């Protein structure tokens, strides 16, 4: 696992806890959770798993590792949200066109 390898090399304990990245990842997950659709489910699951690993890394004070995981979790969650919303809107548009 490259991230773990990096953390081992990079002396995690010397960096500050990535509170901002963690908060942004949690917020992105929270935003995606209520709207996630089948189309965005994989990305959401990845985001969820990465955030859990980031939380564990935080507990172990592997802050650089936690930061990278949190950033990826946020990117995954945002993609899950956009993919799901796009799918929902596409279905709404199809329904709108079919009802005419």
């Amino acid at each position: 696992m490259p991230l773990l390898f990096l953390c081992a090399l990079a002396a995690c304990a010397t960096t500050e806890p990535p509170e901002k990245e963690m908060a942004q990842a949690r917020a992105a997950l929270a935003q995606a959770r209520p709207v996630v659709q089948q189309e965005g489910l994989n990305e959401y699951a990845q985001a969820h798993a990465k955030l859990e690993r980031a939380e564990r890394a935080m507990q172990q004070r592997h802050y650089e590792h936690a930061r990278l995981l949190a950033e990826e979790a946020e990117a995954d969650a945002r993609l899950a949200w956009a993919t799901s919303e796009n799918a929902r809107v596409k279905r709404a548009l199809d329904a709108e066109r079919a009802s005419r």
Partner: protein
Amino acid sequence: MTFHPRLTLIAALLASGCATLSPESQQQLTSARTAYSQAAADAQVQRYAPAELNTAAQALQDAERLAKDGADSTLVEHNAYLAERRARTALSTAQMRQGEAAVLEARAERTRAQLAAREIEAAAAREEAQRAEIARQQAEARTRALEQEKVKVVQDQSAAAGLTAEVKRLEAYYPGVQTRQTPRGLVLTLNNDLLFDSGAALKGGADRALDDLAGFLRSHPNRKVAVEGFSDGAGPKDAAERLSKRRAEAVKFALVQRGIEPHRIDARGYGPSFPVGTNDTEDGRQRNRRVEIIINPS
């Protein structure tokens, strides 16, 4: 490109071991470039998700710079990963926002179509109501016309009945008065013996019959009468015609005296023409000496 001390530190720490890009890093970077190019080339992304596209661009620039600087593959792959995810997010977001706009447009279009359909329905209903109103008015007019026709028929019938009844009264009162219905109208035949002794002076006994006739004409102001005098075949024809004419005019005069407008009465003398009986017997001659009053249909 912002200066990032933490990344620089890590890159410096790891620089020696990472001069060439690992296949994983190369693959991740290629995926990121592809995803970014696709998103950046899409006009809808430029329009609907420029901020998302910008974050992807920053991550890709970081990844490219780290790869060029020979930074740790983990960091290269991390930034390439972020770039790829953000590029795909930008594309999906743009499609989603475009779709939302299309949904709104479709709803507005449907509303317009519904309004138009309702307007057409309303116009059709108004037209139908107008047609119904016109039909109703026409039916009413026909009904009124029929009513008037009926009333007129009844009036005509009662008028005719009244006429006949009144004239029959004359007939009943006076022997020598006869009535008959002809194409010219109702013909009342008055025997000269009832009206005249001799010459053209009316007898006093004729007053009652003339009163009744005048009363009848007054109550039917639209009817005209023809008064026609006839004689028997005795004597010169010219004299007979003159006498019959004078007698008809005497009757007209008597009616005018009783309030009938002169223009309603046409007096003529025909002498011995148009006999109703034979001139060979006294009875026949008596019947030929007569005044006929023709009451025209109104």
